[in-house]
C-alpha cells in the first residue's frame, strides 16, 4: 500500500529531493549564465547575435521548475526568475523532472539529452543552438574539469586566465547574486 502510494506520488523514481535540487540548480545556472555573460567574451559574442529583448526559459514539463533569462543591453543576459512575464521566444523543455535532474546534475550532457529525445526545443532552432553553446561555455568555465568532461562533447582549450580569473569572477558575481538576490 505504501509502495503504491509512493508509485503514485512518483517518489520511487523521482525522490523527494529531486524537485528542490532541480529548482536550486536552475536558479544557480540562471544566475551563473547572467554572471558569465558579464565576463566571458565567447558568450557575449553569441548573445550579441540574439534579437533585442530576446527571452528564453528552460523548464521541466509539465509544471516546472523553470528559469527565465532575457537579453539586456548589447551582449549580456539577465536572470528574470522562475516565471516568464510573456511566452519566451525559445523554450528548452525537459519531458520529465528526472531528465532535468540528469542534465543538471551533469550526468548527461545537453547534446545527449537532445539525442535521447528528453529535451525539446520550442521556438527558433538557430537561437536554441546559440543558447546551448552559451550553456556549454558557462559549464566549462565554472565546473571542475572532471565534472565538465562528462557533460560536454569536448572540453575546450581554456587559458589559465579564462579558467581561473574569469571563472573566479563568475563565481564571485554568482555568489553575490545568490546572497543579495
Amino acid at each position, binding site marked *: 500500500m505504501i509502495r503504491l502510494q509512493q508509485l503514485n506520488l512518483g517518489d520511487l523514481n523521482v525522490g523527494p529531493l529531486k524537485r528542490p535540487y532541480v529548482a536550486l540548480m536552475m536558479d544557480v545556472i540562471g544566475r551563473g549564465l547572467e554572471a558569465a555573460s558579464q565576463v566571458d567574451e565567447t558568450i557575449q559574442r553569441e548573445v550579441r547575435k540574439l534579437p533585442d529583448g530576446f527571452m528564453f526559459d528552460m523548464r521541466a514539463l509539465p509544471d516546472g521548475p523553470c528559469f527565465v533569462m532575457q537579453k539586456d543591453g548589447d551582449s549580456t543576459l539577465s536572470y528574470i526568475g522562475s516565471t516568464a512575464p510573456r511566452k519566451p521566444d525559445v523554450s528548452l523543455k525537459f519531458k520529465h523532472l528526472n531528465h532535468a535532474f540528469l542534465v543538471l546534475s551533469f550526468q548527461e550532457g545537453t*547534446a545527449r539529452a537532445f*539525442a*535521447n529525445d528528453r529535451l*525539446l526545443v520550442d*521556438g527558433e*532552432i*538557430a537561437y536554441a543552438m546559440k543558447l546551448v553553446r552559451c550553456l556549454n561555455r558557462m559549464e566549462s568555465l565554472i565546473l571542475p574539469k572532471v565534472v565538465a568532461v562528462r557533460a560536454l*562533447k569536448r572540453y*575546450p582549450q581554456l587559458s589559465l586566465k579564462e579558467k581561473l580569473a574569469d571563472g573566479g569572477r563568475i563565481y564571485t558575481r554568482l555568489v553575490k547574486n545568490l546572497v543579495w538576490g
Partner: protein
Amino acid sequence: MTKAYYEFFCPVKIVAGNAALEHIPYELRTLAASRPMIITDKGVRGAGLVDHVLGAFAESGMDVVEIFDDVPPDSSTTVVKTIAKLYRDSGCDSIIAVGGGSVIDTSKGVNILVSEDGEDLSEFSGVGVLTKPLRPFFVVPTTAGTGSEVTLVAVISDPEKGVKLPFTSYFLLPNAAILDPRMTLTLPAHITAMTAMDALTHAVEAFTCMGKNPISDAYAVSAIKKISENLMTVLNTPDDVDARLELAQASTMAGVAFSNSMVGLVHSLGHSLGALCHLPHGLCMNLFLPYVLEYNLAERGDIIGELLLPLAGADVYASTPASERGRAAINTIREMRDELYRRCKLPRSLSETGKVTKDQIQKIAEMALDDGSIIFNPVEVDLADAIAVLEKAW
C-alpha cells in the same frame, strides 16, 4: 554508451513494388476516403508521371477529383493557401502528393489547413501544436532521396514575414508511402545520383551520429547496402525496374533511420551551403560526406568501420583489418563519388561546383553552427572546426 535510451516511431504503411500505384484506391477506401486531390509540380506532370497515378484509378470505382500541378521548388504559405481553397471548393477528402521534397512539404501544409479548418498556416508552426489526426494523406515519391515520405517535419516559407516556418508533429506523417518503380524510371542520371547520395548520407549520419539506436541502425545498414549495390546499375541501365525499386526502398529506409536518429555535420554544412549558394541538397551531401566522416573518424572509427560491410561487401570487409575499416569505408565513398563525377559531373568539392567563392566559407561555417543537426554530430564543432572541414572540401 552508458544509460542508453532511445525512441523509434514509424507508423507509415509502406506500399512498395510493381503495380503499387494500383493499391491506392483500396488503401483510400480503408481510410473511408473516396475524393482524393493530387498535389504535384509541372516537371512531374510533364514527365507523364501523374498519368500513371490517374491510370491506377481506372476501374477502381473512384476518381481523382482535383489536380494541382504548380507547386514551386520552394513551397510557400501562399501556395498552400491556394491549394487548400481548391481542395475545399472541390469537396476533396484526401491528399495524394506526387513529387519530391517541396511537393511533399507543401502537401503536409495543405493537410494542416484543410484538417484544422484554418486559414493562417503560421498558427500551426512549431513542435506539437497539432493535436489530432489529419485527413488521409498518401505520398508517391518521384525521386529516391529525401525520405520526406516518412518524416514528421515540414518546412514552408512565409514570404510576407520572410521566415521559414517549421512544423513538427506525428500527425504530419503520411498514412502511406507508395513506392512504384515507374515513378523513378525516367529520373535523369545526375538527379538519380544526387538524390541517392542524399539517401546515403541520411543512412550514414543516422548510423554514426549521437541519436543512433539499434532499430534505426538496421534500416540504415540495409539502405546503404541497397544504394552501393544498385546506384551504378541504375546509371548503366536506367530502365532497370528492379534496381530502381531498390533505390526507392533504400531512400525510404534511410528516411526512417534518420527521422528517428537525426543527422549531423554533413547536413549542417549542406543546409548552409544550399541556402547561401543555391545548390541542390543532394549535391551538397555528396560534397561534404567524406570530409565530415574524416572529421568524426577519431571518435567514431569503429562505428564508421562497420559501414565497410554494406558499402564494399563481405570480401573487402573480411580482408580489411578492423583498425583500418573506418578509413576504408570513407575511401569506398570517395570512389563512389569519383565514379559519379566521371559519369555525370557531380561535383566533389566546393571549387568543382563553380558556384562558391572562398570568401563565403566563413559565412557557411557560421550558419552551420546554428543548424539544429550540428548538436547530433558525435564530435563537437566550433567555428574553426567548421572552417577547417570546409577548407578540406574546397
